């Protein structure tokens, strides 16, 4: 195991895949000469040159579509967005084209492309820089959505995403790029898409949390441990396909569940997973499933309002207390 920052793990994954396959290239705003807005692509220009590490104008719709066309015509593009909030401008390419071209042409084309970049809130950045898009994209057939929480997952899953023959949205976080963690040094380290990981074992309550929310679930679990509550944390890592089997198996042991989701509440991952749990594990539940999400409100700037808005460990603890009837 090597201790790496999240961004270094991502960079290793991109580097290894570019080294392995000439068809892989990366493009996006500031990825080349600037070495990446968040330094994920640092050093790649020097190693691979301007042909394979490509700075784009601020034209999300244009360069995403060029990525889709290049993927259809034999390449494996990695398209970096400075944030998924900006990818909304490219939604036509992701939703109407990347996810649908193969089907509507009766299987005559493939779109092996990775759209990646930071997702969700990164502090006080106001309403248009703070949205979590993983649940929204998971709505669309044909797309895989990955939102890892730790450097090890990030490396193994990004390598899988780049090798995947269909479009993948790979979501990161500005606030996690500097986070350090142990990363496997296994040669060609691959984590299959669609497999959840039990990151903390516990017998009292199952908490489902991915991406940045995993870390607040972890904080909550440490607090709850002091009070004698053992939390089992499941990090789905992949939002779509979602590994519901691992969650249901855990609930059969704990009989209680809290889902932490950085999306707004309507139709988000928490809503969907909550539905599946009530249908597939109804007889095992000792309490209604609870969720912690953003409120149905845009991100405020002001610090006290922002703190009220974003899910935190206290909200997770409250939800755990509700499902364990400790309130």
């Amino acid at each position: 195991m090597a201790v790496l920052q999240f961004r270094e793990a991502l960079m290793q994954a991109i580097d290894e895949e570019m080294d392995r396959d000439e068809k892989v290239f990366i493009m996006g705003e500031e990825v080349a000469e600037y070495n990446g807005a968040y330094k994920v692509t640092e050093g790649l220009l020097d190693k691979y040159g301007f042909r394979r590490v490509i700075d784009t104008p601020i034209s999300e719709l244009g360069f995403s579509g060029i990525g889709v066309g290049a993927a259809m015509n034999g390449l494996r593009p990695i398209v970096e967005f400075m944030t998924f909030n900006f990818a909304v401008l490219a939604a036509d390419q992701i939703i109407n084209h990347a996810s649908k071209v193969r089907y509507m042409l009766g299987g005559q084309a493939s779109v092996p492309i990775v759209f990646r970049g930071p997702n969700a809130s990164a502090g006080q950045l106001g309403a248009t820089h703070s949205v979590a898009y993983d649940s929204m994209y998971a709505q669309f057939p044909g797309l895989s959505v990955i939102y890892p929480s730790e450097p090890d997952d990030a490396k193994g899953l990004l390598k899988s995403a780049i090798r995947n023959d269909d479009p993948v949205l790979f979501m990161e976080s500005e606030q996690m790029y500097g986070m350090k963690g142990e990363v496997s040094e296994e040669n060609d380290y691959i984590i299959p898409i669609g497999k959840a990981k039990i990151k903390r074992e516990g017998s009292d309550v199952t908490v489902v949390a991915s991406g940045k929310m995993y870390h607040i679930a972890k904080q909550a679990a440490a607090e709850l441990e002091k009070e004698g509550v053992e939390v089992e944390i499941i990090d789905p890592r992949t939002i779509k396909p979602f590994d519901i089997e691992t969650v249901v198996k855990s609930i059969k042991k704990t009989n209680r569940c809290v889902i932490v989701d950085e999306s707004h509440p309507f139709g988000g991952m928490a809503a969907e997973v909550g539905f599946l749990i009530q249908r597939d594990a109804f007889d095992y539940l000792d309490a209604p499933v609870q969720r912690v999400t953003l409120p149905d409100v845009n991100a405020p700037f002001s610090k006290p309002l922002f703190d009220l808005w974003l899910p935190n460990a206290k909200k997770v603890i409250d939800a755990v207390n509700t499902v364990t009837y400790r309130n």
Partner: protein
Amino acid sequence: MKDMANKEKEAIFTPIGLKNSDNGKIDKSVKLPPATKKKHKSLGLSEEDVTEMYRLMYLQRRFEERAMQMYQKGKFGGFLHLYIGQEAISTGTVFALNDDDDIITAYRDHGWGLVRGVTVNEGMAELYGKATGCSKGKGGSMHFAKTENHFWGGYGIVGGHIPIGAGLAFANKYQDNGRISACFFGDGAVDQGSLHETMNIAQLWKLPVIFVVENNGYSMGTAARRHTVGEIHERAKGYGMKSALFNGMDALTVYENMKKIADEVREDSMPYFVEIRTYRYRGHSMSDPQKYRTKEELQEYQKIDALERMKTYLIDEGIIKQKKLDEIEETVEKEVLDSIDFAEESPFPEPEALYEDMFSGTPHFHDDKNN
């Protein structure tokens, strides 16, 4: 006249439409540049080539006329956007490009499919939603494709396929394979931001792509002068991109210009922006009452129909006798009628097909136990 003046006053956002003519008795939406005066030989085309051009245009025309009849009989549903009137563009272009150059277009795509390897049977069956269709019945009228012949399909979002066309060119340049791409769209698409983002990047990255506006004068029901400012081909100036404007009602003119442009793009790997002026004889789709244009305007264009023009050329130049021409037409007619039988007799996709063709790699469907 007083009434007109009042209307003009009311039209504070866009110029008003019909009966606003001041350019003669017929108010044409766009002005047509003259056709080439060159003969096929000096363009490097053989007698067989020009005969085949006529056959291809006639095939597209009859395919769509018959498709329209079947649609009106309720044989199949969905949208049906006819290319009738514009066939010289697809035909001249496929002769100008290499067979492995990439072509992508919008939803008015039947003609493009037929000239790039979608068989008449596969095309008609696709309209019927049959398993034997070129896109296995998954795409329908708007999504004809034959990717093995480098025809990447028709696309239904106006302007959505423009960056994809540039992406095809990106991959060709990246792989240094000598291929170029040509991306066709209507005059309505020139108002989409996707075109402008893509033109900027294409010029910046020197992509071997030809952007082609098939300006048929109408963005659905809105005349070109009512939906866009200035001359469309002049948009290229803003990007320092080379551009051309020519007549799309004559296959030889399309061939001459597209050949020159394609050769140049292949040589210097710089993009081109092309406006080809043409006219569609039918409505935007089958549900279009066409109140936005006059019958006289339509008749003016039908007088210069590309098929009639080529037919006259073939006879006048002594390339073909009327009898032989009749035989070609009869063969095409039979082929088209047979394709209707083929489509009607073909099976619909099996229920399992619903889940097929979603993924190239490992398939995944959320919550499939629910379905």
